């Protein structure tokens, strides 16, 4: 089982479930380290004082915050700890919501909650919460503190376990008001166009199957590393031109529909396979 990043207690009314937090995602990215091109030596980072022109030991480093007027205030670890909220060891459930009401824009990092301790009562309380959330299809909203930061989190049942996802606060989500979304009336599609576009969408609708989507970037990067290791030279592929917007939307839609109805669905997926292989 993965290591707990945080342990504490999930508190639900007066019921406390001792839990640990483990990450629900694995980092599969290829990590590079910076090296000196000439001799391959790893690049190291030194903490350097710009005033004394000398290296600074870690224990002499504190945090500075720049005020609007340009002045700087330094804040110590101890002071930051002091403003942490009191309930640092609990996830306090404040409210239950319908999961479908929560816009995915708010989701940040997913974790699993796992029961901790040998206590049978904890395992039972955990099971009870899992079962009730699954039956009611409700998710719990609560707050907790991890690594000196307060998080809003949503807790729900997934595959028989409790999942906790940290959430963005509303003021962290940018307002879409300044995005040009072609809302002028003149851009409104005709009924015929809309019908045709919906027909294309329905023709290309399938079940969400996350397992079929592979990280092609990671696979290609791995191949680049392997080839380079064998001493091959790698050339960057030519970049494709950005396609022109269709001048006649209706014609483009009709052509797409026609291709789809003449066994085009299969052709699309073949094209995709070819791309995945390439």
């Amino acid at each position: 089982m993965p290591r707990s990043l945080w342990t504490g207690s999930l508190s639900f009314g007066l019921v406390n479930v001792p839990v640990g937090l483990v990450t629900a995602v694995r980092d599969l990215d290829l990590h590079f380290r910076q090296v000196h091109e000439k001799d391959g030596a790893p690049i190291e980072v030194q903490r350097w004082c710009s005033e004394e022109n000398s290296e600074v030991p870690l224990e002499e480093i504190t945090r500075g915050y720049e005020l609007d007027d340009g002045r700087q205030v330094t804040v110590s670890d101890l002071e930051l700890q002091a403003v942490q909220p009191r309930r640092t060891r609990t996830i306090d459930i404040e409210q239950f919501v319908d999961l479908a009401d929560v816009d995915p824009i708010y989701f940040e990092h997913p974790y699993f909650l796992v029961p901790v301790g040998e206590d049978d009562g904890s395992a039972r309380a955990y099971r009870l919460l899992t079962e009730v959330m699954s039956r009611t299809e409700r998710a719990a909203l609560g707050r907790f503190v991890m690594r000196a930061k307060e998080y809003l989190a949503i807790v729900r049942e997934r595959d028989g376990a409790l999942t906790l996802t940290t959430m963005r606060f509303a003021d962290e989500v940018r307002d879409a008001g300044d995005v040009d979304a072609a809302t002028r009336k003149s851009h409104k599609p005709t009924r015929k166009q809309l019908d045709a576009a919906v027909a294309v969408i329905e023709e290309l609708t399938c079940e969400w199957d996350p397992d079929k989507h592979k990280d092609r970037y990671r696979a290609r990067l791995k191949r680049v590393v392997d080839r380079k290791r064998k001493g091959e030279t790698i050339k960057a592929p030519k970049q494709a031109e950005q396609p022109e917007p269709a001048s006649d939307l209706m014609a483009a839609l009709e052509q797409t529909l026609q291709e789809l109805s003449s066994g085009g669905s299969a052709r699309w997926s073949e094209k995709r396979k070819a791309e995945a292989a390439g």
Partner: protein
Amino acid sequence: VAKGYEVRSGEYVLLEQDEIDAAAGEQSHLVELEEFVRAEEIDPVFYDRTYYLGVGDDGQDAYRLLHDALERADRVGIGRWTFHNREYLVAVRPRDDVLALHTMRFAAELVDVDSLDLPAPSRKPSRREIEMAGTLVESLHDDFEPEAFEDGYRRRVLKLIEAKARGEEPDLPEPAEEPGGMDLAAALEASLSKSGNGAGKRKSGRTSRRAAKGKSKAKR
């Protein structure tokens, strides 16, 4: 400075930025939608970052058409997108008036629930416990109002900084106590009598806005 990938302990393969870019693939100015799915089928665990899509040159009619068609069909487009030389799996969906693009996690990146090795309790929760917990969940149920939650920690850090800027010394509060063990059924009963059958209790400044706002709900 070049990038080295450690293939074995201490053994690096050196890559130029060009060579790393070679892995990005060709489609760097395209979001290619390959298929469409129903949004409710996608578990939220797959959503990573969100971007808004704005209209490109001469794309107004096509943008609006895709937006309106996705909205009417109640579907999400799934495709690939290359950004900063990295290819992402993406979901495109209408969010109010704009198209939102979510980068998606790959299934292989998710930790399997079986690896958690969850302990099985000696006996299942009783029906009474499930009923009581269900009642408690319902009593605390309310609409999701993202604006009702604010980042209290950030606010407190800013207050601390302002106090220090005025030359004041901050107080250091005591750490919190840890809650102990409990009797499950008794705790449920006590919670229920505490929350009552009304709109549910509210903690830490969150007030029920449902009554004030009525049932009107922001469109997603």
